[in-house]
């Protein structure tokens, strides 16, 4: 028999745990309730003060003092929600007020913290207020990937040449999170990155090139032609696929010639991307090469080639009809399926 004394001890421990849990659960609930009411009241007052300061353009010291005395979390909430709705001079005034109530100062201190979670919070605050502070530039090379990624997000709104240069070197960041944030930031910076990115791609290979090509593909433009041509012959499959996509996005005659060559690439992903690109460009001169791709061993390549032929128009349709009567049943089947597609579906699929 299990010792009753043992059961009693276990039971007592369990009761103690349960009582503790219940007490914490309800006490936390009560705290949440009271805190919520207090925060709501404070937030409402703070919102009004901040709105006055931002919209009137004159400084009311009472409002500044009120905002300065606020709890940090309420300050953050109010400034961030206001920041979302402001641009230009409005945001400039908001930054001034944030500076006056020492919010920026506190964010800077957080950025210098030894704890990555605090650095992250600090730079998020600076980032969402679009504060151009050199302290965040330092965080682009932080040891924590989340902090680097957040710094990159901040950099999207600060497109100066030195920052772009740093961002480009970060395309080789070992952390996927940081790399993704850098790519997104470069894309958000807009056409200003075209020239430095193209120059970067002309001299780099491997992971940074692959990451950069994704951005280049989204931006487009013939400035990337040289780099895309060079990288489309790279030994890395990922780089070749990305370069092919850039060539397709360029949509230039010279890129079309290269794309036609890439239809013979050993990798099916590259061949499919090349066929897709030629279709998008409606490059009828590549009709015969695309028709050849209908016999490809990869279904994806056959599909893209078929859709590309359909996109080309009458010459493509001729190749497709020929393929139906041909001896290759895979080519014939794909050609038939492509020709059976209604116009809208063909366009959507292509």
């Amino acid at each position: 028999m299990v010792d009753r004394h043992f059961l009693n001890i276990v039971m007592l421990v369990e009761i103690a745990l349960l009582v503790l849990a219940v007490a914490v659960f309800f006490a936390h609930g009560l705290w949440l309730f009271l805190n919520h009411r207090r925060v709501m009241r404070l937030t409402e007052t703070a919102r009004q003060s901040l709105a006055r300061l931002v919209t009137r353009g004159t400084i009311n010291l009472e409002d500044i003092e009120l905002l300065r005395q606020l709890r940090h979390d309420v300050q953050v909430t109010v400034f961030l929600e206001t920041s979302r709705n402001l641009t230009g001079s409005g945001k400039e005034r908001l930054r001034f007020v944030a500076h006056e109530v020492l919010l920026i100062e506190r964010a800077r201190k957080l950025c210098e913290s030894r704890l990555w979670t605090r650095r992250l919070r600090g730079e998020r605050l600076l980032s969402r207020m679009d504060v151009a502070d050199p302290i965040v530039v330092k965080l682009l090379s932080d040891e924590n990937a989340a902090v680097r990624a957040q710094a990159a997000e901040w950099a999207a709104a600060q497109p100066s040449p030195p920052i772009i240069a740093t961002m480009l070197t970060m395309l080789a960041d070992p952390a996927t999170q940081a790399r993704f944030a850098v790519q997104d930031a470069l894309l958000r910076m807009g056409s200003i990155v075209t020239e430095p990115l193209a120059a970067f791609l002309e001299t780099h290979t491997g992971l940074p090139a692959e990451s950069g090509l994704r951005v280049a593909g989204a931006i487009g433009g013939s400035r990337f032609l040289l780099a895309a041509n060079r990288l489309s012959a790279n030994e890395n499959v990922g780089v070749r696929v990305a370069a092919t996509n850039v060539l397709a996005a360029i949509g230039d005659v010279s890129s079309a010639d290269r794309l036609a060559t890439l239809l013979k690439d050993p990798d099916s992903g590259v061949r499919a991307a090349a066929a897709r690109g030629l279709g998008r460009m409606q490059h009828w001169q590549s009709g015969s090469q695309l028709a050849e791709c209908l016999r490809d061993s990869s279904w994806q390549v056959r599909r893209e080639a078929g859709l590309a032929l359909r996109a080309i128009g009458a010459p493509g349709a001729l190749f497709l009809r020929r393929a139906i009567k041909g001896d290759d049943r895979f080519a014939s089947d794909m050609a038939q399926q492509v020709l059976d597609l209604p116009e809208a579906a063909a366009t959507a699929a292509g």
Partner: protein
Amino acid sequence: MSEFLATAINQVLIKGQFVVLVYFLAVNGWYLVLLVSSLIEMRRHMLLIADESRHLLLSSTLSPRISILAPAFNEEATIEVSLRALLALQYPSLEVIVINDGSKDRTVEVLKERFDLVPVKTIYQQRVKTKQVRDLYRSASYPSLVVVDKENGGKADALNVGLSFAQGELVCAMDADTLIEPDGLQRMVRPFLYATDVVATGGTIRVVNGSEVKLGRVVRARVPVNALAGMQVVEYLRAFLFGRLGWNRLGGNIIISGAFGLFRRESVLSSGGYLHDTVGEDMELVLRLRRLSYEREGPGRIAFVPDPVAWTEVPESMRVLGRQRDRWHRGLADCLWRHRGMLFNPRYGVTGVFVFPYYVFVELLAPVIEAVGLISLALGLAFHVVDWSFAGLFYLTAYGLGTALTAFTLILEDVSFHRYDSFRDRALLFWWAMLENLGYRQVTVYWRLRGLWKFLRGRKDWGAMERKGFQKPVGIAETN
């Protein structure tokens, strides 16, 4: 002879009780480890997402395209509301594929009428064998909506069809009646953006019963008054907030809810897609992905993210709930049996040595041990081996730690997301957590044993699920 028999029974009961009690304490002790792990993980996660501006980074045009696969079988009552909510999800590159799995009701007609569907043709590659596709539709009003009408073949078959038609790099497998929160996908896609070895992510499933729902969105989360639904709220919180979150840190999950999971499409297809001949197709797929990642030395990380939330309607009748639990347990048994080679096999790393045995000895066999404990306690009382006070003490000791841990889960929910904000909800939640062990848990033991028994007999039927629909707040009548 009878004296000898009585002594033998006495001995068996005494030893049996001891084994059962040790088992309970060991399991709950492990739960305690999971709880601590989930607390650490939750704190880290909350710090990571504090003041995060999802509308910037997570809605990037560079984000991977997501295809939502929503299999629908007799979902006439809920399909319109659910689908409108899906189409309104905040994600930059989204495709919604509804797969009508040979519904016998008006599901397809409702879809055609409400979403301007027009028949289309497309070219697709059938990499996984499925039942015949009858028709394919696109919406004239919603360019991202595709509806596939196919012969009935079960959820796994429907998902496989969806995989064939999907254009997205990622696919979100869900139930057609699941309500995903507007930014759910943005939150769920994080692990894919942050690491290249992630093949699947799962979010939190919450119980919608009793909550206020408007236009397919949960506008206010409430704890249901219905006892069965209320206790399931507690179960879901426990399963997701400390179960799956805890495993995130301790070696990885092997379960992603079939109601809301995000997968790398190529990984699913190259692993062979969903299996047709199992009732636990979601768990089987995840387990297979894990297994293949070790065997092929490829990516295979499964991540649970606590903040994306999907709401689901849970059964409010014993009959339907019993069928569901029975099926879940059969599914679990089936998956573990199929992949039994992983058990204690160091080749499969933490999953083989740690996670898999946990699922076998704790999740699968728990009802057996629990039933043995309860029966021996009853026999002990019948044969006067134990008195009532001892039996009561034994019972409370066995279930007490679990109750305390459940209460701590409620705290975890409260300090992290605190979706249930009123005192009434808080009190109800606590009430259901306390009552859970007084009858409900024992009934679930019976259902799970039944599932195990059916598995041993080779039964693979699903059983029907009855839906009320979300048009009106579910369970609001009871609330008022």
